């Protein structure tokens, strides 16, 4: 486990391995959520341009328990959050993830969600905004164990590229060994709507403000207004626009 990851390792394929080497090994933080309990897990990686921030979490979620993960990676040469979540019977995971990257930054959200028992639900929503030569990745694997009937798993990942030189990697992945399950996933990569930008400009809104308005709408609903997350995202948007 403490071997330095390589490109051959799927979960690290798009990472900045040179940056990883400087901080390796990274300890895994483990959480056990007792049946019926709720774990709220806010993770904000917002270091300065040279920093490397990696957080690796392993979460075991008991029957009927909930995890509400709020993840934002908005700063650092390498910012990476990986979550390994094992859901018990009727447990629930919600992940709201936001990445904002610019310059040469590499920002990643990597999840491995196991529906180990019946009737668990998971909902992962990730929005990625990239400028410059930044790389942003969402690698999300959902594994449904044999017998985990009644699983309901949703993954929605969308990336917005501010420059054609930025790179987004979106990889929802499903591995299903049960037959009565609902697994939905969607992934899109796009650019800001030129028509909307012109419409905003025609009403007097300057390009940077117009882009900020559209990008805030793009991540809207995933972060609470006036939270530290919203502030970090706003600050990062200013930097990458």
């Amino acid at each position, binding site marked *: 486990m403490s071997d330095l990851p390589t490109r051959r390792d799927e979960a690290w394929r798009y990472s900045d391995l040179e940056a990883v080497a400087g901080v390796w090994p990274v300890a895994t933080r483990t959480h056990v959520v007792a049946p019926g309990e709720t774990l709220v897990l806010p993770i904000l990686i917002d270091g300065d341009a040279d920093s490397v921030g990696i957080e690796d979490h392993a979460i075991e979620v008991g029957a009927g328990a909930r995890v509400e993960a709020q993840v934002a990676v908005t700063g650092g040469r390498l910012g990476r959050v990986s979550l390994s979540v094992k859901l018990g019977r009727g447990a629930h995971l919600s992940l709201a993830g936001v990445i904002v990257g610019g310059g040469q930054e590499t920002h990643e959200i990597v999840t491995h969600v196991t529906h180990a028992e019946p009737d668990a639900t998971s909902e992962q929503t990730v929005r990625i905004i990239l400028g410059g030569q930044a790389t942003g990745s969402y690698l999300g694997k959902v594994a449904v164990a044999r017998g985990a009937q009644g699983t309901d798993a949703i993954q929605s990942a969308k990336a917005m590229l501010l420059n054609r030189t930025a790179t987004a990697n979106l990889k929802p992945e499903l591995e299903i060994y049960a037959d009565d399950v609902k697994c939905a996933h969607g992934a899109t990569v796009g650019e800001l709507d030129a028509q909307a930008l012109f419409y*905003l400009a025609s009403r007097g*809104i300057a390009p940077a*403000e117009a882009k900020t308005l559209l990008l805030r709408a*793009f991540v809207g609903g995933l972060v609470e207004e006036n939270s530290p997350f919203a502030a970090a995202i706003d600050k990062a948007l200013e930097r990458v626009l």
Partner: protein
Amino acid sequence: MTSHMLNISNLHAEVDGKAILKGITLAINPGEIHAIMGPNGAGKSTTAYVLGGRPGYAVTEGSVTFDGADLLEMEPHERAAAGLFLGFQYPVEIPGVSNLQFLREALNAQRKGRGQEPLSGGEFIKLARAQANELGLDPEMLKRPVNVGFSGGEKKRNEMVQMGIIGPKLAILDETDSGLDIDALKTVGDGINTIMRRPDRAVLLITHYQRLLDYVKPDFVHVLANGRIVRSGGPELALELEREGYGAIAA
């Protein structure tokens, strides 16, 4: 040196390398309402977009001044701040941004450009509600995302609400009458009159049909065909067009 508000001189423009405007000359003074009519493909919408500064519309020849300043040198948002309002034939939907937020950003951006203080939230909401009521738009629509799920008529009313809040010097209205039923047409026509018929404001109406001109009486009517103004006249020209068709007039 002229005192025209808008002075278009020998304007040529192309889109995707194809010449669309081939020498438009037109002067608009404060207090005047002009209508440009013409068949499909004549260059009516292109005229509006070129004046608004839409990317992809390249001016190849000619000049446009607005209050004496070179309009074509300005960015689209600067044109708006200078007092130009472009009413869209197809208003754009912007999911996730509420109408109120959009309008407030727009108004305050323009106030900032004029060196005025931004309006407070309370003042702004009062202004927006009053405008919406005036134009028959349910004020609840102001809370909804910009134009998302609006009917054609609601989108056009919303354009007029924006125009009322912003209070431009010159409104260029591109087929504001398309997609409107008779009641909406009357409301929108009344809106244009209330907001824009003033000695210091002017309107350029772009339309296919005479019917909007029953409500908004133009001082001048121009016929655009194949990228040029081929005839100009008073309001009677619109009636003549309606009677005889573009073919006879533009030939």
